[in-house]
C-alpha cells in the first residue's frame, strides 16, 4: 500500500468505476460509443489506486471510469473515460 492515497488529494478529482450493467445506459444517454470517449491507461496511478479499493479488483480495458470534477463554467462536471491497456 502506497503511503498516500492519491484519490484523497484535493487536486485529484473523484474517480468512480462504472458498474458494467450501467455502462449501456450511460453510453446511450451520452450518445457515444466506448471508442469515442477519452481514454485512461490501465497503468494510470488513479486506476491502480482504484483497483486496491475494497470490492473493486482488477479493472480490465473496456471498463468506464466516471470522473466528477469542479468546473469553472458548470460547477460540477461529470466526464467519462474508457480504460485502455498498456
Amino acid at each position, binding site marked *: 500500500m502506497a503511503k498516500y492515497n492519491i484519490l484523497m488529494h484535493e487536486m485529484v478529482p473523484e474517480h468512480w468505476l462504472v458498474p458494467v450493467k450501467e455502462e449501456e445506459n450511460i453510453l446511450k444517454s*451520452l*450518445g*457515444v*460509443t*466506448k*471508442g*469515442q*470517449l*477519452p*481514454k485512461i491507461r490501465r497503468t494510470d496511478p488513479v486506476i491502480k489506486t482504484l483497483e486496491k479499493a475494497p470490492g473493486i479488483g482488477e479493472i*480490465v*480495458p*473496456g471498463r468506464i471510469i466516471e470522473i466528477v470534477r469542479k*468546473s469553472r*463554467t*458548470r460547477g460540477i*462536471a461529470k*466526464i*467519462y473515460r*474508457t480504460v*485502455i491497456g498498456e
Partner: protein
Amino acid sequence: MKVEISKGIEELKFALLSPEEIRRMSAVKVITPDTYDDDGYPIEKGLMDPSMGVIEPGLKCKTCGGKVDQCPGHFGHIELAMPVVHIGFIKEIYSILSSTCSNCGRIKLPDSNLKEFFEKIKDTANRLSDIEYDDIVSEVESDASEVVICPHCHFENQKVALDKPTTFREEGKKLTPKEIRERFEKIQNDDLPLIGLDPKVARPEWMILTVFPVPPVNVRPTITLETGERSEDDLTHKLVDVIRINQRLRENRDQGSPQLIIEDLWDLLQYHVTTYFDNQTPGTPPARHRSGRSLKTLVQRLKGKEGRFRSNLSGKRVNFSARTVISPEPFLSINQVGVPAKAARELTVTETATEHNFERLKELIKNGPGRDEAVYKPGVNYVYRIDGSRIKISEKNSAEVAEKMELGWQVERQMEDGDIVLFNRQPSLHRMSMMAHEVRVLPYRTFRFNLAVCAPYNADFDGDEMNLHVLQSQEARAEAEILMKVQENFLSPRFGGPIMGAIHDHITALFMLTYRNPLIPLETGLHITSYIDVDRTPETVEVDGKRYFKGRDIFSLILPEGVNLEFKGKLADKSLDPNGTEGLIRIEKGKLVNGAIDENAVGQSKGALLDYVLRKYGNAEGAKFLDNLTRLAAGVISFTGFSTGIDDEDVPGEAKAQLREVGNEAVQKVEKLIENYKNGLIGMEPGKTLEDTLESMVMKALSQAREKSSEIASHYLGMDNSTVIMARSGARANMMNLAQMAGIIGQQSIRGQRQHRGYTNRTLPHFQKGDIGAYARGFVSSSYKEGLNPTEYFFHATGGREGLVDIAVRTSRSGYMQRRLINALEDLKVSEEGKVLDTEDSVIQLEYGEDGTDPSRSFEGDSVDVDYLVKEIFGTKYEGGKK
C-alpha cells in the same frame, strides 16, 4: 473486450531507387538531347517524347493514352556511359567509404562489437526510437572510421578524404565513382542496418548513379511565349546538357580516346548531374542560363521562401481579393465598407443567367467594362457561353453581347453596392479579425469604414492596409451574413460584452453634448440633427427670446424607444464631481434624464448603454444605434470644434509652487528614511530584509508625491480644459498623464524596483558612490512640460526601454503559444448535439465548454443575467447588478 481505436500514420520510410527500378518505371530511354523538330513536333526518344506524358491540350499520351488532365506523366531514363556520384548522398557515401574495408567490404569493427550493436538494434522488446537508432549508426561510423587494419581480412586500409564537392581521394589518389561503386557492391546486406540502410529497400551502390531518371514532361513543361517562341524549363535545359556530355563521353570511351580526355568529360558529366540536383552546391559554379540567370534545378524548386513548401504548400494565394490602405469614414454604417471604384471594377461576382436576373444582367452587360463616370455604374468584364467559351466585354461589343445572352450564361459582373465581402486585417488573432461587410463603392483609392470597427480589427490609419475578399456563391453570402457580419460580432466571445463602441472624439463629443445639459441654439441643433437618421426634432426651450434645444434631448433622439436604464458614469466618483450628479446616468422611456454620456455609457467593451441596447433590442438595432451615435458625434464635434495643446497643461504660479513643494517634501522624506536606516532606526517588515523594507518605504513615499501632484493638477485644471474633458469622459488619457505633464513625472522603475544598476555602487557617475537617495535612484521631479534634466532623462529612457523590450518578448512568445494552441485545436468541431469532437469523432468535451454556453451570447461569462431578467419580469429596481 477490445476497444476500437482509430488509426493514424505511424511512420514513413524513405528508400533508394535501384538502377533496375529506374529502368522498370521508365517509359522511354532518352538518347537525343533535342526536344522538338523544325515542324514543332516532339522528337522520338528526345526529351519531350510523348511517352513521358503530354502538355498540349488535344494530344494523347503514348504510354497511357490519357489527355492533358488525365495523364499523370511518366518517367523516362538515361543510361549513363560512366557512373557518377549523387550529390544528395555525398555525406553518406563518405561515411560508408570511411567505415568499411576497401578490400572485403565489411564494417571495420570486430565481429564481437558488431554483434553487440546488432543486439541493440534487433531487440524487439525495447524497440529503439529513431533518435537512438541514429545514435548507434553514428557511433558505428565514428568507431569504424578510426580503424586502419581490417579485423576481418587484415587489409591495411587508407584514409579517405572528401575533396568537395564530389571528389573522393585515398592518400591523394582519386577514387572514381566506378571504384566506389565496386567497393560498395562488396558490402554485405547483413552489415547494412549498422550503416543506417534497410537492405530490403536500399543498397549503398545505388547512391552512385548508373541510370538517370528523366522526370515526366508535365514536371518541366515547355512555355510558349506570346511571340510564338518556345522556351524550355530549366530542368529540360539541364537534361540536355547531361545527355549531350553523356553521348560525347560514350563516343570517346568507345573510340579509346586518351584517358585525360575521358576524365575531363567524366568530370563534366558529374558537374551537370550535380547541378541538375542542386545548382547551389558549395564549391561548384552554378549553371547559368544564356541570359546569365542561374538555373532553378530540383533543390531550388523545393528550398527556401520561394520553394514549393513555403511558397506553394504553406502559403496560398487567393483570387477575388484586394488590398489597399484604409481610412476612416464616419458616414458609413458599421456594417459597410467603402471600396474604391478602381478595385470594384476588377473584383467580380459570377452570376448565372436565369429567368429572374435576366433583364438585370442584360443591363449590366450593356454598361460595358466600365466608364469613368462621376457615379459608379457596375459593368461586366467577361461572359461565358454555355459551352464554356469566354467573351471579353468591351465598349464596342457590349450591346451586341447583351442581345445575344441566353439562359445559363455565366456573367462576371463587377462589384456593386450591397455585395457581401469579407474584410480582414492581419494579424488575425481572433475571429473578429475577419468580418463580413456590405459594399459601398466610393471614389478614391482607400478602403473606408466606420471608426467603431477599428477595435475588433485593431486598426488605425497610420498607413495600415487591409484585405478584402469577394464572396462568390449564394451559400457563402448567406453564411457570411448570418455568422460573420459586423453586427453579429458585437459581443466578444472573450468577455461577453461589446467590443465595438464609441472611441476618442465620439465620446468627447457626446460628453460635451450632455454634460450639464447645455443649451444648443436652434440653428446649430437643427444642423447637428441633420447628421442623424431621425424624422423628429426635440422640443425647444426659450431663453431671453431665443430658442434652444437641450443637449440631452438631442442625444435622446438616437435612443431606441422605451429604454429604461440607470447606471454609474465615470463622474460617479464623488471626488471628481463633488456636488454634481453628472455621474448618475438615468434614461427613462427613451429619454436621457440625467448624467453625462461618457465611456461607461457608449465606450468600447464597457459601454453599459450600448450593451443594454444590444441585449434588449438585438444586433440590428444596436448597429443602428451605433451608426447614429457616430454620426451625431461627428455633427457635434464639427460644430463645437475641439483641440488640445501643451498649454492645456499650464497651471498658475501658485500651483507651480505647490507642486515644487510636493517634490521637495518627497525627496526630504526619502533622505530622512535613509538617515534612519543608516542609524538602524528602521524595523524589518515581515518577509523583507532591511534593505527591502527601506526600498518599499521609499517607493511608497515617492508614489504618494505623484498622487499629491495629481490632486493639485486636477484642482487647478477644470472642465473648461480640453485635456481634462478627454480624461474625465474616458475619451483618451487619464488624470495621471495630465499630472505628469503639469506636475511630477515620478519614479522610474525597472522590474518594479527603483533603478539601481549601472556603475559600482551608483547608477550614474553623476552621483556619489553609495548614494541611494531619490534622485540617484531614478526619481523624476520635473514635468513633461518643463522638461527633464540629463540624469532624469536617462532614467526615463531606461524605464521606457523596459516597456519596449517587454512588448517584443511578449508578442513573440504569446504568438508562438497561440500558434501551438491553434494547431492543436483547429480541427475540433461542435456537433449538432453540442459535443466537441475531433476529426475521428472522439469526444473532447461532452458539452461545449462543459456548460454548453456560447461565451459571446453569455452575460460576462455567465449563461444568464439573472438581475436583468428579474427587473424585466418583476419591474423591481435594478440594483446595479454584481458589477
